[in-house]
């Protein structure tokens, strides 16, 4: 079952690449939609049934197809599969510019496949392989299907994305190989149960440093975030959504699965530095958003700030912190997906996303888009009743009362910085609302969201509200796995 969910995406993608050149956009879109729906159904089934797969693949490397679902991966799997359907549906009414529709959709499906495989895998080396799968299709999405007006910027952004993340994943590979060498197994479940027992603290620190440095590029943690804004600015809407909502999650998920779970002793030594970097990221992202002129880039910087919260919560080391990080992860996935769908749509309508250009107020001409933008911004600044609230405030709480082995004063200072960051978030949210949403201008008119686009936006809005009002089910899903991870630490 679980293998079926994995195999349908690349199979359809390959078929589209090989045979889809002559097909028109509609047909390709329908086929991809069907594939992503099948993948969603299989993912739901896998989350409910929790099957396990374990068979050898490359014995020369000790590489195994070892797949499974647990409380940590289940929400991310559902998020990925659901957004996979959403991006394919969203692209239905807009044929991609810059290449064939089949190539575009096969890249989307391959990115989704890589992300699902990353979240499913239980083998450390296979995790690296799955992590790498998304690179080439995402690079094609950015360089071929990105912002049609600026080819040089596209090439630059795509190259940066691939080279930065490849650097990160190769560093992570070195860490994984060192970990496997020290622990004698690549099975993530066994590694998490052992929680670093039997590995000398020095080795743990080296391994944790390599893994954290590699994954921090993907997350991205300040100051390694410089690949993210250009990639977001130039990527097509569907690419931005996948990038923010799925690819960044692979970084934080990797931080939980690899350094935090397998070498907690080493990770604890790095945690203070990571907390500081997270807090700096929150402030940096917020400040950048206050002055940023490009709306898409602004949302990208706000992603940097949100990932700062996740990293801060992870660094706190407590079970609450881990829960906060996992919740904030999913919440950011939904919120950023919503924001990028809305902002991407606006950029397509406006022709650019420059905030200095005087435009019609969205409140007047496109109330649906305006409302969802406002709601997304409100959720991003952590307003109660919306998805962002729980993740951010739990993160601040976790940093205020961290695990006993963490430096209390430093983490409390970081918590204060994080609170300041939410004030900045309120500032930039109001700035965007003032520039884009309010006002009395009604020219030039833009079309409001309709049909599929509105459907996708409405679903995301609903998800943001539901996660905000009813955080219980998600927190319950992750709680046992989270306390098991933290409890196993020495």
């Amino acid at each position, binding site marked *: 079952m679980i293998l079926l969910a994995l195999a349908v995406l690349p199979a359809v993608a390959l078929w589209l690449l090989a045979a889809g050149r002559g097909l028109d956009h509609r047909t390709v879109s329908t086929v991809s939609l069907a594939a992503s729906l099948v993948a969603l159904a299989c993912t739901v089934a896998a989350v409910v049934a929790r099957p396990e797969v374990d068979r050898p693949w490359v014995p*020369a490397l000790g590489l195994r197809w070892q797949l499974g679902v647990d409380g940590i991966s289940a929400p991310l799997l559902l998020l990925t599969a659901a957004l996979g359907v959403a991006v394919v549906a969203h692209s239905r009414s807009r044929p991609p510019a810059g290449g064939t529709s089949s*190539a575009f959709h096969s890249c989307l499906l391959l990115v989704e496949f*890589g992300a699902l495989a990353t979240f499913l895998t239980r083998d450390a080396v296979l995790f690296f392989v799955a992590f*790498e799968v998304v690179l*080439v299709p995402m690079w094609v999405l950015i*360089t071929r299907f990105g912002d049609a007006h600026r080819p040089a910027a596209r090439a630059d952004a795509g190259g940066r994305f691939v*080279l930065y993340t490849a650097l990160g994943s190769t560093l992570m590979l070195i860490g994984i190989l060192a970990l496997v*060498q020290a622990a004698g197994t690549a099975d993530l479940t066994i590694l998490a149960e052992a929680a670093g027992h039997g590995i000398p603290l020095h080795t743990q620190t080296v391994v944790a440093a390599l893994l954290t440095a590699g994954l921090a590029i993907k997350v991205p943690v300040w100051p390694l975030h410089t690949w993210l804004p250009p990639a977001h600015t130039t990527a097509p809407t569907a690419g931005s959504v996948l990038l923010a909502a799925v690819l960044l999650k692979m970084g934080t998920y990797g931080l939980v699965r690899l350094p935090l779970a397998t070498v907690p002793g080493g990770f604890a030594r790095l945690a203070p530095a990571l907390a500081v970097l997270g807090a700096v990221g929150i402030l940096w992202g917020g400040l950048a958003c206050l002055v940023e002129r490009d709306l898409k880039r602004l949302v990208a910087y706000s992603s940097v700030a949100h990932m700062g919260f996740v990293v801060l919560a992870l660094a706190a080391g407590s079970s609450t912190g881990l829960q906060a990080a996992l919740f904030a992860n999913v919440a950011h996935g939904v919120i950023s997906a919503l924001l990028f769908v809305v902002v991407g749509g606006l950029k397509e309508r406006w022709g650019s996303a420059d905030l200095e250009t005087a435009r019609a107020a969205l409140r007047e001409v496109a109330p649906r888009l305006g409302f969802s933008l406002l709601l997304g911004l409100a959720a991003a600044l952590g307003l109660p009743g919306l998805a962002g609230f729980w993740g951010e405030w739990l993160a601040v709480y976790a940093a205020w009362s961290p695990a006993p082995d963490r430096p209390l004063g430093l983490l409390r200072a970081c918590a204060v910085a994080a609170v300041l960051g939410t004030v900045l978030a309120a500032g930039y949210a109001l700035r965007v609302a003032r520039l884009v949403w309010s006002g009395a201008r009604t020219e030039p008119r833009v079309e409001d969201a309709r049909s599929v686009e509105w459907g996708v936006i409405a679903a995301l809005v609903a998800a943001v509200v539901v996660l905000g009002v009813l955080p219980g089910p998600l927190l319950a899903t992750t709680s046992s796995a989270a306390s098991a991870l933290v409890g196993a630490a020495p």
Partner: protein
Amino acid sequence: MTGPLAIDAAVLAPVLAPAGGALFVLVLDAIAPRRGAVHAWVGVLALVLGISSAVPGALRAPGNPLRTLCLPAPDGACFYDAGPLASALQLGALFSTLVVLLLLWPVPPVPTPAPAAPAAPAAPGQPSPRFWVPGRRGSAASAHPIAGGGAPMRGGPAVLVALLLAGTAGATAVAAATDLGSWLVALELATLPAIALVALGGTRPAIEGAVSLLLTSLLSFAVAVLGAALWVVASGEAVFTTGAVARATATPERSAVLGLAVLLLVAGLGFKLSLVPFHAWTPQAYAGGSEPVAAFLAATSKIAALAALVVVLRPLAEAGHAAVVAVAVLAAASMTVGNVLALVQDDPVRLLAWSTVAQAGWVVMPLAAVRPTSLPAAGGYVLAYALATLLAFGVVVLVGAGLRDAPAALGRGVPHGRSLTAYRGLLRTRPLLGAALGLALVSLAGLPPGILGLAAKVLALQPVVAAGLWPLALVAVANAVVGIAVYLRWFALLVQPPEPVASAAAVAAPAAPAPPGAVAAVALTGIALAVTCIAPQLVLGLVG
């Protein structure tokens, strides 16, 4: 069992088949000259025979190598000793030569396509089939107006096939040679035909490349012989065995001499593997000769050199001798220099030449860590690299052929096949060819979907990390990133939309028939690479 030496012809078949094939081709040519296709078929037969006889050896257990040429019982030393790694490298060398032979396949002399070219009177009425040599065009284009004609490589089909087979016999022999004498002879047998092949290109750059190759290989041979002599001094024996190493390491003075011997042997082989700082001949020889010959240098020759290196290092790795660490410096330097220079090349053959230098660094990198997994890791990496690079060369040959046979496009100033811009939009205009090249490039870069390259990269890094060689590992990380930049630069052109002028010309000029041998070569390597990307074990499992 005749005489004092026990000879088992079946075990020796991977060497005997290509060697016998080479002799047979020459005899055949003497009896019945001017029969091009027959020679090539004999070559294919000999190589297939060699491949099928090398497979059983590659599938054996590591502790149970195939041995022959053994002395009688009391002494019992065997001069031919092929474990699974040696057999897998023999397999790789034979397969690479098969692909090169297909790339060089003789085409019957066809008149130039009628509407195509008043300016390209391609040697009309030439009676014998000629070997198809795309590489000459790049250099001769300015000098001769018949640039599109593809003049035959000198020497004739029989000589070319015989040289290819002889070089392959040397490669398969050196992999299994345990005594210094056969090792040195086999190494030269693997090298000299390659020099001749480059020289037979006949153009001025080809001769220059051949001379440069000849000089460096003579020098390297001298260095290797000196190393071999020191080995004998240190160990008192002319064999590469654990026993010899153990005797040499027993006393510190002898151990130092052994270290010097290993350094010289590694330096001698470094020329052949084109490791920095012994790499200078590489771009010259690759770009001077024709593309198939460059493929031979990049695949068969590299496998032969690594096989020779494995023979030297195997007893040392078992004894844990520290001299091996010198390899780390060569590996780091090769990767860095090769990648950085590949980044600025515009000629695809030169790019592949510098990429070879960088990949050679990756190949020898695991050898720097003295661990039991080092040698199989290097072997697995070289096989994965050879497969991908052969595919890339095959596509370069085909793209060059398409442009050569479309002089209308040439006439409009479209750059010929020796520039990366010729590949713009290849995925759109010729999807299968573009997909094949794309797979080869991502495999060389070590990115999915080129899982084979990715797995090989993991395999090569494993012993380095296990041995705790952190500086080398970090250099490798940086080079993995630069390498991705190198290959993506080319890959990016594939996915771009084709140039409107080029596509119009392609539509206007009827597509010339592609050389069937090169098509077969690309199909063979393409399918092999695609299959092994799904199941990398098929390649990486061979090395034991």
